[in-house]
């Protein structure tokens, strides 16, 4: 197991090398200059030049890259001029909100998608199934901002149940922490649930046709136990895959919702950093996201093995 995980993490190396080169090239290609952003419209050209020198932007690209790689190998992702802190520290700070949000959103999504998807599969062609189709189409097409806006107006402005926006770390108390995350988690969760519910439906349908379901039925298992015990666990693998995929995407992909709800997460950090060309942070984040992506895949694979005893890792 340990060796397996090590091996998987080693497989990450080529991805990281590719990503780091690509991100460097992209940064080289994108016009825009962090010095100019920092100093603004009325900045003096001389000052801009100085600042660029300070930031190391006047070095040849290859040298910049090698310097950065040198640092990265020693675990140093560089410093952000804008955040005035080491990139790794900045990422660590923004991690909790994003991970919390992503977890909660997945939870919301699963809470909706699993019962709904199962019902639709069992009642194929009937009302629940059609409702699921409608729901998932709506969920996929509804623009995220509209849903968020609506939730905020209803639950925060009108009913005053929850705050409009903001974030409190878990150390501020559970309710404090949750109250800020509920609305954004629902906004994201609904959209994801639309995707997951469809997968639940189709993979449950697939499993329903398996001979061992017939065996269970022939043993006298009730419909409910049949679906929740025998079918669901076998249908879990495609569901896990999608959940893992969406979770990975949420790392950087929740930027819009994070912005709307003012959650200081990775997505917002990435958007801000791109906006102001905070190269060190962009590079660090891209690497980090790639890492998370691989880590999530790895966790999903470990879960596969937990769910399905046939899957043996290392094969």
């Amino acid at each position, binding site marked *: 197991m340990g060796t397996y995980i090590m091996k998987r993490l080693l497989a990450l190396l080529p991805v990281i090398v590719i990503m780091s080169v690509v991100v460097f090239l992209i940064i080289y290609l994108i*016009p825009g200059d962090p010095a100019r952003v920092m100093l*603004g419209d*009325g900045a*003096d050209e001389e000052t801009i030049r100085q600042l660029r020198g300070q930031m190391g932007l006047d070095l040849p690209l290859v040298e910049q890259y090698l310097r950065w790689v040198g640092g990265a190998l020693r675990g140093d992702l560089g410093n952000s001029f804008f955040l005035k802190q080491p990139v790794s520290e900045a990422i660590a700070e923004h991690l909790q909100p994003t991970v919390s949000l992503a977890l909660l959103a997945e939870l919301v999504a699963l809470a909706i998608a699993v019962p709904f998807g199962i019902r639709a599969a069992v009642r194929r062609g009937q009302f629940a199934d059609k409702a699921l189709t409608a729901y998932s189409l709506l969920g996929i097409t509804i623009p995220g901002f509209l849903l968020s806006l609506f939730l905020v107006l209803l639950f925060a402005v009108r009913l005053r149940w929850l705050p*409009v*926006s903001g974030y409190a770390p878990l150390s501020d108390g559970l309710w404090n922490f949750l109250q800020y995350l509920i609305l954004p988690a629902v906004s994201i969760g609904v959209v994801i649930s639309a995707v997951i519910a469809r997968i639940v439906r189709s993979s449950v349908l697939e499993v329903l046709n398996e001979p061992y379901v017939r065996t269970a039925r022939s043993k006298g298992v009730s419909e409910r136990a049949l679906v929740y015990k025998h079918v669901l666990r076998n249908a879990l693998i495609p569901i896990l895959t999608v959940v893992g995929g969406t979770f990975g995407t949420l790392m950087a992909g929740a930027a819009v919702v994070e912005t709307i709800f003012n959650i200081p997460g990775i997505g917002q950090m990435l958007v801000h950093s791109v906006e102001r060309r905070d190269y060190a942070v962009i590079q660090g984040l891209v690497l980090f996201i790639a890492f998370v992506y691989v880590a999530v895949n790895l966790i999903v694979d470990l879960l596969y093995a937990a769910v399905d005893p046939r899957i043996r890792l290392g094969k």
Partner: protein
Amino acid sequence: SDKSSTDAGSGNASSGTAGDTAGQAVATDLKYPLSQTIPTLDPHLSLGGSNATVVLNVFEGLFAFNSKYEPVPMLAESYELSADGKTYTFLLRKGVKFHNGKEMKAEDVAASLNRWKDKAARAKSSFGDSQFAVQDDYTVVLNLKNPQNDTLAQLSHVLNFAGIMPKEVIDSAAPEGVNAYIGTGPFKIVEWKKDQYVHVTKFEQYQSLKTAADGFSGKKEALVNNIYFTLATDNATRFSSFLSKDFPYVDVSLDNLPKVQNQPDVQILKNLTTDFNLVFNKKSPLFSNVKNRQAVAAVLDADQILLGIVSTPDLYRLNPSYMYKENSKFYSEAGKENYNQKNPDKAKQLLKDAGYNGQVVTLLTTKDTGNFYNATLMVKDQLEKIGVKTKIDIYDYATMLTKRADPNVWDIYVGPFTMPSTPSQLLYLNPTYGFADDAKLAELLKKSTSAIKPEEIKAANDALQQYQWEYLAAVKIGDTYSYSAVRKNLTGLTLFSGFPNLANTKLLK
């Protein structure tokens, strides 16, 4: 138009007064929205927007604008100007403390202002190599090569703000900014959580002036203990937070206005925020030819463009001058016959004369902030009506900045400009911004700043503006306002070009 809004033509808007609420319970904490991220809190590098919102409450300069854009002494006790107009002697107030407890002395002021002068392009172009020198502990002297009538205005201006910081801070500053934010203002910085909030707290040792508060000048008394300048980049979020009473103040878009307009506990403020100008790239093949620039000026219909920017006649005014009307020193109507001409025929003729034959005009803009895009779209529409081929290049703000510094990739740029108070602050008269390259313009600009007597200033300024309307480094389009809403329990808030003076502001429970 609507009674609930306070029209603050002066560029200032105030909510209520601090006096009439004595006896009510007051809140000690205040949350104030920031709409953009803050790259730095170094006052000398600050570019307006969210930076200024914070910086102006933390730092102070020798002078500060009052509501009429007049520089009034702030950290300076007084100043003397030599007869030739070249030597300023600033006497400093005594007993002014920095947030670190150290008293402000001349060495701090000189160090701060010499650094500021190098960092702020507008100051550099005004003061060149002149240095602020320490005369004694409370006296700083500035020797200029030529008279500069904008000296005090430059020292007061809110962008690249000439804030005074301790000498040690200046000495240890890196190119990307100072390492500690220590000023003399009524609030001191406690924590800056990047991209989230800036927490400032009442500075107990603040030495207030006794003169009446006016703009950013005069008396300042911190009436709340803590202010959290909170970043909320999304319009709708800021507004919802206002509705849920999280923020007592918010900027209000036209669309949101009806929701707060007739609320009894909300006061609507109308602030003069920006003026819009169309800037030509004077190095571009097309607009290096003044005839083409004139053609553009001839066709523009300012009313329509402004309407396109703000969507309502309530939020703009026509103004042929590069200065606000309120700026009595530099306001001028010279050359106004070239403003808002709406004359397509003339434009077509001019184009013909200039030999225009269908080259594509590139309009550079961004959708990231402000109303750049709206204005650009309206200009494009009007240009197309006289047969000019156009293309809009939209980039994110950072890219746009870089592209704009490149003379080869754009022709026209339309954008908002924050509160010019002297001609020397007009970026587009600067060779780096739109690449103006005209000896006469430079000459006239110099004259207008070096004049000393009010009549001379007026004459020089009229001549400058007259010439600008012919040379057309840029075309003035008009001034725009914006609404903001204040809960009535927030009293004493002063807004100056949209930037709040949070001293004297009280939040009732």
